[in-house]
């Protein structure tokens, strides 16, 4: 009995010493990392935006100097971007398996937004309406291979639609010259790219018959620039006076998509 008590006593004491040493060293490491964070030793580089194959990629370089006494493993940075309707637009993950103590790493976190997916996922409204996206950044890591930590940051991210407020103005009918004039306008709110390409359009009359097809070229509309043009269509105005619809096909260097606008009595 006495030996068992003695053994348990020693085990308890040894455990307490180990815990105390571990806690103190953890505290020291955490303080060291915190000081680094506050003095800017974990810097975020300047984000770079690039486009390829219908995908916009924001690359954020970052570096991490592990001055603590323990390894940091399974560093996982995940960025989720949802639009103003809470539809998930993009999920990007960067994983750093291990940052050994005393080591310095440099990595790049890539956030990809596929414009093709936006078009194919029926979220083309994002191309026409600017607003605030919600960006959620999760950073998870394991400290000393034992303690999992997670930091999540939820922030709004302004979204600039490349065809913001795309609309047709008041359709005017020129009976004398047998013309229909349709004013087109939009604003490029996107801070990242210019809009250029072609707009194909098909005009349907009140009986849903195709009355005219055409194409207009989009000269590069710079960021924060506006586009205004009047489409003069040699069509009999009487066929479009009551109601009509115009079907647009946008073809830009980055993506292509369709949109339809109606005018007149749209009860049918």
């Amino acid at each position, binding site marked *: 009995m*006495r030996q068992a008590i003695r053994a348990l006593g020693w*085990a*308890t004491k040894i455990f307490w010493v180990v815990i105390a040493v571990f806690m*103190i060293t953890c505290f020291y490491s955490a303080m060291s990392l915190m000081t680094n964070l506050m003095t800017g030793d974990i810097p975020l580089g300047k984000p770079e935006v690039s486009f390829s194959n219908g995908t916009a990629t924001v690359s954020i370089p970052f570096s991490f100097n592990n001055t603590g006494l323990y390894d940091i493993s399974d560093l996982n940075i995940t960025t989720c971007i949802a639009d103003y309707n809470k539809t998930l637009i993009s999920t990007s993950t960067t994983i750093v398996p291990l940052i050994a103590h005393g080591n310095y790493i440099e990595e790049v976190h890539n956030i990809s937004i596929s414009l093709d997916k936006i078009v194919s996922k029926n979220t083309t409204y994002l191309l026409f309406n600017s607003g605030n996206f919600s960006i959620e950044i999760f950073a998870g890591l394991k400290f000393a291979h*034992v*303690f999992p*930590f997670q930091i*999540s940051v939820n*922030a709004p991210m302004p979204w600039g639609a490349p065809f913001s407020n795309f609309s047709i103005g008041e359709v005017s009918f020129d009976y004398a010259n047998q013309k229909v004039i349709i004013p087109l306008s939009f604003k490029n709110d996107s801070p990242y790219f210019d809009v250029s390409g072609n707009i194909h359009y098909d005009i349907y009359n009140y009986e849903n018959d195709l009355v005219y097809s055409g194409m207009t070229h989009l000269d590069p509309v710079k960021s924060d620039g506006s586009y205004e043009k009047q489409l003069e269509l040699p069509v009999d105005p009487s066929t479009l006076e009551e109601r009509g619809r115009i079907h647009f096909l946008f073809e830009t260097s980055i993506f292509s998509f369709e949109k339809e606008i109606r005018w007149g009595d749209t009860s049918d």
Partner: protein
Amino acid sequence: MTEKKEEKTFVESVMLRVFKAAIMGVITFFLYCLLPMLMFSMIPTEGLPSEFSSFFSKYENLVYVFAAIMICFAVAIQLSSGTIFQHAFSIAKAIVLILYFIYALEGGILTLSIPTGEITISILADLTTFLAILILVNLLALAKSMFETINFLSQKAEQLPTDTSKEEKITSIPELK
């Protein structure tokens, strides 16, 4: 004369116990209160959001509670040393510490949410492994105290029959009757 001597020995032993308890109290106070407070004062809270400060102040208070628990039990155990209460207090201390750690570490999952304007920062720390280790160590201490209690009681039980047999022996000797 013998009574006075016995009284003096009793007072001396009580004084010695009180002195030891006081020393233990001071050591415990230094180890579990002053040292952690020194560590807390090293945390650079300037420039951090107020939520951080309130989080740290909550843990500062919990350190005081921990120190109070440790000091109370250290003094109580020292005062009641050599009695069954010493082991009872040891058992109570292990149980109270287990409950304290579960409460202080919020079951192992610590969360902190810092809203700064439109941005919300949430921090989550999973300390379940650490909590499990702390509980395990306290369970070891609990087991040790249990064994000590059993040992103490068995020694007492062993002493009692010996005393009665001595009395029996004395009464059986005709000259001493």
